[in-house]
């Protein structure tokens, strides 16, 4: 009998060691082996991830990523974890995540079903809806006010798709201009090439805050879409790493610190120019923080 227990104990012990060895796969194993984690940042995704005046990446998503790094460090019981920073663009973020250069992409990447075929996302850190910015002098506030006007949006975004759909559905006869990026699109409103610019409201807020005359612009109340989730991107199918990231972000969002980090980037002056985006936390965002979720479905956040 004693022997049997011993055997049982040995088997259990064998399983236990095997189990702990199994835990370390994928990203976690790589981080343990190399003693380093690589964060992908964007250079101009204000206020999520961008370069400050010292060329150091800062932002809301960066703060969250450093929390995940802390959690990884604790999980792997490391004394020291080197954080490598790697710039990414919308064109490079997928290859760099896929080939293992970048472990976490911290920016303003929309979490949607198509993208989930390719990558994983941790809990949603921000919700944004498609709205439009225009000059206050133009007095546009409803979508229907755009009838017959030239309206710009960034090519290759879901926003331009929503604009196209609304235009067709309501028969507004809008002249839709595709722009190559947000800066160009905003410039087109600034220089009166276009009457309005349709984009994620938070990006519009940061573009307007950075304009020569921030008070000259108004963002519409009317939205083209339900709020869409932004998530921090990681490799698909790496459940162990995702679990650590999910736990870390959930703990952050549900604690008072989550709201504090939000306020730091959205309702206070942010570097490098001391702009204030003035976007207080709305009901959807409050709910997304209270009940952290990695769902790509906008309805999950209503």
């Amino acid at each position, binding site marked *: 009998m004693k022997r049997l227990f011993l055997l049982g104990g040995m088997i259990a012990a064998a399983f236990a060691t095997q189990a702990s060895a199994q835990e370390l796969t994928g990203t976690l194993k790589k981080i343990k082996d190399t003693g380093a984690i690589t964060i992908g940042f964007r250079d101009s995704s204000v206020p999520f991830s961008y370069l400050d005046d010292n060329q150091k990446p800062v932002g809301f998503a960066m703060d969250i990523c450093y929390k995940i790094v802390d959690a990884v460090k604790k999980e792997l019981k490391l004394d020291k974890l080197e954080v490598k920073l790697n710039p990414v663009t919308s*064109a490079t973020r997928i290859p760099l995540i896929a080939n293992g250069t970048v472990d976490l992409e911290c920016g303003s990447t929309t979490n949607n079903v198509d993208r989930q075929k390719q990558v994983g996302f941790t809990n949603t850190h921000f919700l944004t809806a498609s709205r439009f910015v225009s000059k206050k002098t133009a007095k546009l506030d409803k979508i229907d006010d755009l009838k017959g006007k030239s309206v710009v949006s960034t090519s290759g975004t879901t926003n331009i798709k929503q604009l*196209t*759909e609304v235009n067709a559905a309501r028969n507004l006869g809008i002249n839709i201009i*595709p722009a190559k990026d947000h800066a*160009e699109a905003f410039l087109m409103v600034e220089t009166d090439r276009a009457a309005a610019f349709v984009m994620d409201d938070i990006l519009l807020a940061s573009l307007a805050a950075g304009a020569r005359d921030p008070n000259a612009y108004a963002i519409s109340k009317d939205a083209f879409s339900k709020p869409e989730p932004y998530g921090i991107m990681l490799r698909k199918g790496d459940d162990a790493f995702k679990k650590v990231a999910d736990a870390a972000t959930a703990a952050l969002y549900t604690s008072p610190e989550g709201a504090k980090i939000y306020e730091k980037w959205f309702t206070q002056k942010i570097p490098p120019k001391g702009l204030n985006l003035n976007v207080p936390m709305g009901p959807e965002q409050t709910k997304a923080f209270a009940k952290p979720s990695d769902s790509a479905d906008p309805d999950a956040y209503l």
Partner: protein
Amino acid sequence: MNYNWNWGIFWDQTPDATGTYFASLMSGLQVTILLALVAWIIAFVLGSVIGIMRTLPSRWPVMIGNAYIELFRNIPLLVQLFIWFFVVPELLPGEFGAWVKQLRNGPFIAAMLGLGFYMSSRVAGQVTAGINALPKGQRMAGTAIGLTTWQTYRYILLPLAYRIIFPPLTSEFLNTIKNTAPALTIGVLELTAQARSMQEFSFQVFEAFTAAAGIYLLLSAVVTIGMRMIEKRLVIPGFNVGK
């Protein structure tokens, strides 16, 4: 690598519901070809004029031609496109400027002008070189039989010069096709722009850019083969300096 290959993606619908990804790449290809052709016409005509000016006997046309080449050849194409698209309309007088800015095909027109002028400086260089490569006697012979300068160019120098520079002009035309890609930075939805928007929507970045690369290669192959055929027909026996 942890990447989910999906070569069937080209037959999926794009989220903006305008058709499949393949169709959007093809529409990009159309814009690329159209832009390359129009820009090439501008480049060829203007380049020829400037190139010929630089071989004229008097001083002023030579200086103007040289200045033109230095100006358009030495500023990066990207910068020139930005100047045409963003700066030039601001310099135009009020109403006219606003009208230009609101043109529906504004980006295309700016890209066409920018690329055309940029390539024209290169074509001009080739044309000058072609004319200068001819033996001096050709020009003198023209004058000797009583032809005017214009006639000498029209009947003697240019027909020979263009035959000599035909191969380098082919490569300039290929450059024009490749140089349509920066036009995406001012909002022309050409092939590279469509590949980019495809990867933004679907996250299938490798498939998108592999397809774009393949299409560019195919397009260049078609042009090269076509130009080779024309080249053969243009040869004057015993007069092809390059060969």
